[in-house]
């Protein structure tokens, strides 16, 4: 197991390197400069700025020095937010996005797994249909519709929660619900499907024959197998929720890192773009690894060589 994890971690290095090199080149291929605005900039000033950020050196040198800095954990300086390092910007925004993603994830799991179990255990009853219809609606309503609806209800009609901003627990509820609901809906359907696959399996029948209580059977035996598809989905979904909440963060003016995915590229904020790409890649790769590990823990058929 340890060897497996170590080997996989080692395997991440070349993958990351390829990602870094490719995205470094792609962002530099885009026309325009980080310093261009509608107000012209004299060549004298542009030279100083380029020299300050090292953009005056040949591209391969810049790439090498970037990778070197990256290995030391230095992500460079932002051009859009002068005087701020990309490390600082990510350290400011990432906890916010993590908190938002965490709340969303808890909500998604709570609601999704709950509804999924309900649907599977009470298959083809009124309960099942209600839960699965709700899930269909949840999948169908995009965040940019759900968010404003929640704002309208809780902020502008009932005046109980703020419609945006950040700073207290009250601020995280609406964006968290908005972000988590769509995932909850997926999780509900996956849980139900997974549970139905094992519900008539021999080991469940055996458990019943042993006289275990239904609750215990669901918890101990069915969930382990039933949650496998959810686990598969959860890896990339968690990464997505944690790092990719672009729309939700925009609607609720949440100061996370979501908007950088788009804005940093528009601004040609080279190092910030790279920082975000690296962060997201690491996160995604780690999540996938985590999924594989979780498989081993949940499914007795999986063995690590």
């Amino acid at each position, binding site marked *: 197991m340890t060897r497996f994890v170590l080997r996989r971690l080692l395997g991440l290095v070349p993958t990351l390197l390829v990602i870094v090199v490719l995205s470094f080149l792609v962002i530099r291929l*885009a*026309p*325009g*400069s980080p*310093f*261009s*605005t*509608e*107000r*012209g*900039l*004299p*060549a*004298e*000033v542009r*030279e*100083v*700025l380029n020299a*300050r950020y090292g953009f005056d050196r040949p591209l391969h040198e810049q790439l090498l020095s970037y990778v070197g800095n990256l290995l030391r954990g230095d992500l460079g300086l932002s051009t*859009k*937010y*002068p*005087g*701020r390092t990309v490390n*600082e*910007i990510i350290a*400011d*925004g990432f906890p916010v996005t993590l908190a938002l993603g965490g709340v969303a994830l808890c909500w998604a799991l709570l609601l999704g797994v709950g509804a999924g179990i309900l649907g599977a255990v009470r298959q083809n009853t009124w309960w099942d249909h209600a839960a699965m219809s709700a899930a269909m609606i949840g999948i169908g309503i*995009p965040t*940019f*519709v759900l*968010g*404003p*609806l929640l*704002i*309208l209800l809780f*902020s*502008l*009609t009932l*005046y109980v929660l*703020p*419609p*945006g*901003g*950040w*700073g207290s627990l009250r601020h995280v509820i609406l964006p968290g619900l908005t972000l988590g609901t769509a995932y909850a809906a997926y999780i509900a359907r996956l849980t139900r499907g997974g549970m139905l696959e094992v519900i008539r399996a021999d080991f469940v029948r055996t458990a019943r024959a042993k006289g275990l209580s239904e609750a215990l059977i669901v918890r101990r035996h069915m969930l382990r197998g039933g949650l496998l598809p959810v686990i598969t989905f959860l890896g990339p979904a968690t990464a997505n929720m944690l790092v990719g909440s672009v*729309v939700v963060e*925009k*609607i*609720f*003016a949440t*100061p996370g890192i979501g*908007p950088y995915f788009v*804005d940093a590229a*528009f*601004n*040609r904020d080279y190092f910030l773009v790279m920082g975000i790409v690296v962060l997201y890649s690491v996160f995604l790769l780690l999540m996938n690894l985590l999924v594989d590990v979780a498989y081993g823990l949940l499914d007795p058929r999986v063995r690590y060589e």
Partner: protein
Amino acid sequence: MRSIPGYAEVSVLCLFALLGSCARSDDRYYGTTEPRHGPDEVWSNLSGEPEWIDPGKCTEVNGGTIIGNTFAGLTRPHPVTLEPMPDIAQGWRIEEEGRVFVFKLRPSQWSDGTPLTAHDFEFAWKRLLDRETASRYASFLHPLEYGADFNLQSLVVEGFATGTEPARLQQLAAQFGPVESVRLLRDGKRALVRIGGDEEQRSAAREALRRGLSGARLDGAALRVSVASSDLVGVRALDDLTLEVRLETPLPYFLDLVAYHTTMPVPRHLLARLKAQGVNEDLWTRTEHIVSNGAYTLKEWKFRQHMVLEKNPRYWDAEHVKLRTIRLAMVDSQNTTLNLYEAGELDYIGNAELPAEFRDHLRQFEDYRQAPYLGVYFFWLNTREPPLDDPKVRRALSLAVDREALTRNVTRGGQIPTADLVPRGLAGYAGLNRPLFDPVAAKALLAEAGYGPSRPLPPIRLSFNTLESHKLIAEALQAMWKQHLGIDVELENLEWKVYLKKLEMFDFQIARLAWIGDYPDPNTFLELLLKDNGNNHSHWTDPEFEALMQRANRTTDRAARLSLLLQAERLALAQTPLIPIYVYSRTEMIKPYLKGNWMNYQHHTFFANWWIDERYYTGVPGTEAADPPPPLQHPIDIGGRAP
């Protein structure tokens, strides 16, 4: 840069339109009318994280708002009329027919108690012009004597015999590289060589000139060459409280310039201390370091979340600052801003704008207001690209735009249609008042240029940067030109940075842009058309226009100067290097209990004047509280030339 409205924006709009209004305390207002905080603070909004709050480096509106309220310059604009009034300078004297300004400063302090002196201004201005500062706004002080030469690194040549003609030096220098001009410094012993040639090559050209000229001989004398230093620049602290400024040419709007945040002082003592401690100079504006001299100080700055400003007890005019705390959110989405405003989380939308599609609905509420804004939306014409090299074709295109229909049906935000470059009424400027729309004359002009049904104009490309509102305007122009002139226009939609690159390379035929005036004077718009202005994207130049502009800005009589500027504008627009469309307008929402916030041409907000009408804590009062703007303050008489 504004963000592109995405799904989020559009959907909020649709939903709200569908669901209509909800419970409110008073139907006349949009959202709550009860302050959600104490009477000693205000919650406002910046439309995003400021890039810089360093006076010398700030280039955008959010940084400008912070600097304008935490720093104080020599003058400050009147909150309504924007006329310059004394601030740190209590009075001034104008000498040498408007070329020299002597400012007398009032004794005042930085927020850490250090005395503020004229040296802080000298330091700040020279720092702004220093190429190493890499300020994008350095050109703001190019009007200072030798300011541009220091900023753009002209060469200083000395060692030649007194009385040598600059033309002879120029002749000599031209052997080594491109020279734009050579002129003698005031002492007559040194000469300034401005580097010419292609901008990208200037660095190399400077080096070649420097090497060539050093040691070269003129009439037997060996020349010495150096790069222009800050000592040359026309700003000098005569003593702790007297600042002397020398300008290249008289500048009638100079007192407006020194009210702008770019010219505000920088705490020399703090920067020196940080340097000694080895701290990156860029970090001086962080809350743990910053020292300022304005009505408020920066208390808290949470990156991309909020800023908190607190009243500065050391501001010289602190007794007139009413509120203790200003809390500024940083919400860039227009719809989210409006939601926050409706819920009472914001008292004022601040620097944000109202969602365009929402304005018609918001207009009915009493907390809605609008005013013209000092900016012009226009299209550059590339005057070297046939068929646009023919002024008749350009004028025809301009005349065939139905600007009134465009602002009424397309932009719909109270914009003022205009065919002039300078908004009329600006600082007493009469305005050209050119016809807004004349399709018959347009057609006639096109025929005169040799185009008609038998010989149609080739298709024209119109470029704009990706934004829904630009697209709508471009499509409207496309339809109008098709309808009135029978021209096929193809639209080119480009991402912002790509677009800027194309503008810079002159790789376009017609391209949209806007210009927001820096100071309330016609010059801020007309200088766009000068030959050497890097923001002139038309390739159009006219020596007569240059001469008129120069003459105007050397004229001290106000009326005569404005009439010369008017002549210059008439001459330029007759050749139509650009097609003006409208003057901007600003629309905003402000809670009825927030007072002392008046609209002005430049959307300058002065937190110092704000106050809360406390009657709103117990319901909407029947009468409006009196809220007159402060009277115009005049400079004190500082007497004649000092002995």
